[in-house]
């Protein structure tokens, strides 16, 4: 990030990507002889939502723990908010907020006292701390229970208080480790809304999840982590397009049209009952146009078509687990 600002190009070297909030290169971690992370490379632009998707035990939490300075990596480099996590952990800590998998609250204190404790530890000063606490209590809908002990809160309320505590210091980069695991659907939606608001305000969000819908809903980019490696990375649509299974379904009303089309696409799967053809393809605009041109050329008149893209579940199952290992290695 130390590049000189050039008059023609913002970052020099022709790289006009937005600045990265998080970068890792070759990140490795092992516990004993069990390799948890086996060389992770990531680049997460500032102000975006990044989802690390993976099954249990894939190394998601370990990645968050390394990036949030909780545990040291065994190898590789990681930079968060422009600071090396190993060389300048305090700088990193000053820029981040972490909401882990398990609520990090003081159960014996009230919601308000929990937030004030954060304000004190962030050295905000009495008046600013009180104002910030009040603001967050209201924003997260817990102002009416501000004087109640955190231990008495429901799961959803604990998670909200937890996130509110993370936000007291207005961090630039936020880590959310499985933020909605165990939440009811309504609390989950509230959490999603909050994440969207944060990103709208310019915050970078790094979230881990095992819910595909969550990654699909929130993330600008998704990386699929499995067995300590990134097995796929891209936008939700890019990932869906990457696995086989995208196809165009052509429907016909006249059997003659159907037969003509079938000779044009000999590889297509026939559905003689429905007079429908299943043609493999990624459903992209150019592919679609070419497909329709070929139909026209053969004089086959189609009644309609539909594009079928696999959902993230298909992607996830195809990319992770035992089946994926055989096809990849």
């Amino acid at each position, binding site marked *: 990030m130390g590049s000189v600002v050039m008059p023609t190009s913002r970052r020099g070297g022709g790289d006009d990507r937005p600045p990265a909030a998080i970068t890792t290169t070759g990140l490795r971690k092992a516990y004993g002889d069990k390799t948890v992370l086996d060389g992770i490379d990531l680049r997460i632009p500032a102000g975006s939502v990044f989802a690390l998707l993976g099954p249990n035990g894939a190394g998601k939490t370990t990645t968050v723990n390394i990036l*949030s*300075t*909780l*545990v*040291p990596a065994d190898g590789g480099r990681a930079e968060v908010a422009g600071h090396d996590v190993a060389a300048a952990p*305090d*700088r990193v*800590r*000053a820029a*981040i907020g*972490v909401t*882990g998998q*398990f*609520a*990090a*609250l*003081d*159960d*014996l*204190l009230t919601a308000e*006292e929990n937030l004030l*404790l954060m304000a*004190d*530890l*962030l*050295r905000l000063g009495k008046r600013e701390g009180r104002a910030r606490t009040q603001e967050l209590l209201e924003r997260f809908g817990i102002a009416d229970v501000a004087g109640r002990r955190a231990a008495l809160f429901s799961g959803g309320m604990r998670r909200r208080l*937890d996130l509110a*505590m*993370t936000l007291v*210091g207005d961090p630039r980069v936020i880590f959310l480790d499985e933020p909605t695991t165990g939440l009811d659907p309504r609390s989950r939606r509230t959490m999603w809304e909050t994440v969207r608001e944060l990103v709208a305000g310019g915050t970078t969000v790094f979230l881990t999840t095992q819910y595909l819908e969550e990654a699909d809903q929130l993330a600008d980019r998704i990386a699929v982590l499995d067995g300590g490696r990134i097995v796929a990375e891209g936008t939700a649509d890019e990932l869906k397009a990457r696995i086989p299974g995208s196809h165009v379904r052509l429907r016909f009303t006249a059997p003659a049209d159907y037969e003509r089309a079938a000779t044009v696409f000999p590889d297509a799967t026939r559905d003689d009952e429905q007079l429908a053809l299943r043609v493999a393809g990624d459903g992209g605009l150019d592919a679609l146009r070419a497909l329709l041109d070929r139909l026209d050329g053969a004089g086959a008149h189609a009644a309609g078509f539909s594009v079928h893209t696999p959902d993230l579940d298909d992607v996830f199952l195809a990319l992770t687990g035992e089946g994926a290992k055989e096809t990849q290695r």
Partner: protein
Amino acid sequence: MSTLTYAVHDSATMLRRNLKHAIRYPAVGLGSAMLPILMLLLFVYAFGDSIGAGMGGGRAAYLEYLTPGVIIMGVAAGSMSTSIAICSDMTEGIINRFRTMDITRASFMTGHVLGSVVQTMACAVLVVGVALALGFRSGATPLEWLAAAGLLTAVAFAVTWLSAGFGLISKTVESASNKPLLIQFLPFLGSAFVPADSMSPGLRWFAEHQPFTPMTETLRGLLSGTPVGNAWWISLTWCAAIALTGYLWSRHLFTKGPAH
């Protein structure tokens, strides 16, 4: 602000948090005061006459002998409650929140240790109050009381740092509350309840060389006017050694990373 003011500020914040816990849930603190108070009542009323007679006095004489020992035992027991508080924090998510914040690393431990010392001293005051109510009379001057308070603070500080280490190596709160039993039991094997020279030779050797004996002797000297001799500096040396060992050990455990 400089690094030092940050450290003081963060430690003060952590101390406030722990005192708030103690005031809101006094059961733990009062619980550690109950043990010495019950010991005091038991030994004075159940065994006081016979032990007192054996020592050439009566129940009143034994109360005078016993009180300093029970106070030391109470301070040792009270200090050990830190391990429960620290272990409970370590097993909750809150410790990871503290670890990912830009705060002075040591403040978490310092806050716990100072909070525990304050709490233990409050217990000691309670025990002295009960002893006075039972008829304990001290001829100590205000300066001697002050010295006694200083000695007890040093003992509490030292044992608390050791206790902090026990809290950090414990995986569960239950095991954290069991580990310190040995240290709570140590004053019994010293001159707290009966003079060491009334013990069997092996035990006597141990009693004369273990840290709580000179501490008890020093406090007894300050409160009851018995000769202190060189017990005071042996006590303070022990305190310094225990505090330093406990501090270095806990610091090593805490900076090593999450144990849980």
